[in-house]
């Protein structure tokens, strides 16, 4: 996983060394309800950081006590992670994605970026998992300071609302892994889903909305619509976006 063959790899661009998306074509959707057939750590202590952040957790560095603080749930092709990586160079962050080919792409992308920018992008990684089922297997209570849900699958049919990644009951688990004061960022270009996500967060007793000033001051908010591939697509088509940004509060 750590070996990188950017020179000879035919799936990578010759000029930039980055992987090319055409070799990582994937379905747009994945069923979160199906049984998972990929390895999942039994508990957060079983999650091997040395594999994901080899430079930071190398024997000569004192990364031992460091913990992942940002989680991008359904990270897609990883646009946001890449932007956050340089904005918060000292923070460990991870993308979680259910589609294996997309995860593979992000993995290659990170490795390519690490190779071409020595010392950078060492704080970012990706894992293939079903975050709706296994969030507590990866993070301890109050471990995270930021969680991202950008352009999630809208699941329009009412029958499929339980597949939505923001739902009243799943918010309990997100509140569990978030520190008090931690922030949950959501954005979508589907108005119906935007209203849904906002109302789920609004009626949850462990979350409160950020004020206008706070949103203005937060550099991450600007990235929500500009950094991701989905966001850029929406911007190209002059589409509207709907965001909901909430803070974890104590009860």
């Amino acid at each position, binding site marked *: 996983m750590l070996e990188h063959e950017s020179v000879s790899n035919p799936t990578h661009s010759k000029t930039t060394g980055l992987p090319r998306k055409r070799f990582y074509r994937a379905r747009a959707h994945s069923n979160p309800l199906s049984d998972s057939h990929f390895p999942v750590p039994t508990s957060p202590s079983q999650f091997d950081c040395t594999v994901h952040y080899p430079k930071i957790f190398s024997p000569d560095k004192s990364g031992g006590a460091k913990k992942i603080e940002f989680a991008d749930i359904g990270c897609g092709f990883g646009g946001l992670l890449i932007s956050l990586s340089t904005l918060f160079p000292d923070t460990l962050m991870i993308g979680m994605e259910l589609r294996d080919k997309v995860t593979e792409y992000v993995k290659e992308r990170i490795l390519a970026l690490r190779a071409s920018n020595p010392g950078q992008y060492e704080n970012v990684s990706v894992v293939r998992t079903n975050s709706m089922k296994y969030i*507590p297997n990866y993070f301890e209570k109050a471990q995270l300071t930021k969680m991202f849900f950008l352009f999630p699958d809208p699941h329009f049919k009412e029958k499929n609302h339980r597949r939505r990644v923001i739902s009243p009951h799943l918010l309990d688990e997100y509140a569990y892994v978030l520190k008090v004061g931690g922030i949950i960022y959501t954005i979508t270009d589907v108005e119906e889903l935007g209203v849904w996500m906002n109302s789920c967060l609004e009626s949850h007793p462990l979350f409160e909305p950020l004020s206008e000033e706070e949103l203005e001051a937060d550099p991450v908010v600007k990235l929500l619509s500009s950094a991701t591939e989905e966001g850029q697509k929406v911007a190209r088509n002059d589409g509207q976006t709907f965001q909901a940004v909430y803070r974890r509060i104590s009860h």
Partner: protein
Amino acid sequence: MEDHDIEETEQKLEAEVAPALIALHPNQKSVSVAVGSGLRIFNFQYGSAAQLLDENGGHKDSIRAIGYSNSGKLFVSGGDDKLVKVWDTNSWRCVYSVVSEKRVTSLAVSGDDKFLCFSDKFGVVYVVDIRDYNEEKSATVDKKAVPILSHYCSIITRLEFSPDGKYIVSADRDFKIRVTLFPKEPLKGAHEIQSFCLGHTEFVSCLAFVSCQDYSQGLLVSGSGDSTVRLWDYASGSLLDTCEVGAKAGLLHSDQKQEEVLTAVTDLCATSDGSLVAAAIQSLPGILLLRCNFSARTLSIAKVVSVAGETFIPTSIAAASSVPLLWMVMGASSLSTTNSALLARVRVVSGFAADHSESFVAESSSVIEDREIPGGEPLLQELQGKLSIGEEAFSTAAEAVKTAMRNLLIKKQYSTERRELRKRGRNDKKNQSPTLS
């Protein structure tokens, strides 16, 4: 493709087999056995069966969970007919009936008899407000259930309230145990997760609290399909001890061929002082007694109590807090192969009590003869349906229950080729796929 379809239907049939369940009134006023859709109650005070009064005619499909409330006033039952019923244990009248959207998998009544919680096959836990309970009323009241928490689309196998009533604990087939704060106003939902107890590597099948006077908050023990019983500090979610019990069960049955599937722990029951925990294990004819040490925070194997004369592998166990007896039932519903459609056999272990000397346990706990069981023959007649049961029925039931549990709770593993094949056979592409035979 045809072979594949047959295999699927076979699995479905087996999954319908429900294990027999047993529950005991906290003061041993009565004992209940559920097998199939039938509830059988024996009342010790009158020495006879209790007649259930339900204007809707009881359960219509396999009962999956039963239990008495801590006070003993209420008895609850629920199952595959998507109904939860609350019974008054004096009159055995159905006082509440709740309709669930999905099949009911487990039940728990809060320590103060104010709320009933139940879980369904889709991982949602519901609460029902039963504060308006009134013994005088004679009609069954229909109640609405409110969802309070959810395990994401995972079958919840067991629900328990902590001894102090502060937490509700739920276990699921995805190896998880979730400890959630049970709020003062639970109808608004239980949003605050206290901890997750993570460590099992297969489905979690059963839970029990062990508590003693010095440690009233208690510790949690859990049994699993991974052949272990684990001890937890449930408030922090930290694993204190792991007891491998599969090896112990395997030793007794070394003549049997080694199976790839681990023997699952199917039920747990603790003594009122928490010093002993009984574990029912698939393929172990008898019961395994574990000793819980609160100061050292350990769990160790104390003794195997084996059953002589018949292949009795309990499917459910229970005890009353005041009486040193462990009640066990072995049985299953809708067995297709034998003429006895329902099987239930009740056995009792003596000496299931608080005592700290090891020799005491070793000498005094044993399976008692049928004639020594409280209630005697009338009890066995009522709970078993008949007094003598043929030996072949036991092995059939044991096998059927085991298969049903495996089909229900263990993730199916397919080879990569098989998965690709299934993908190709998806509904939207079926017409184009070539026939395989």
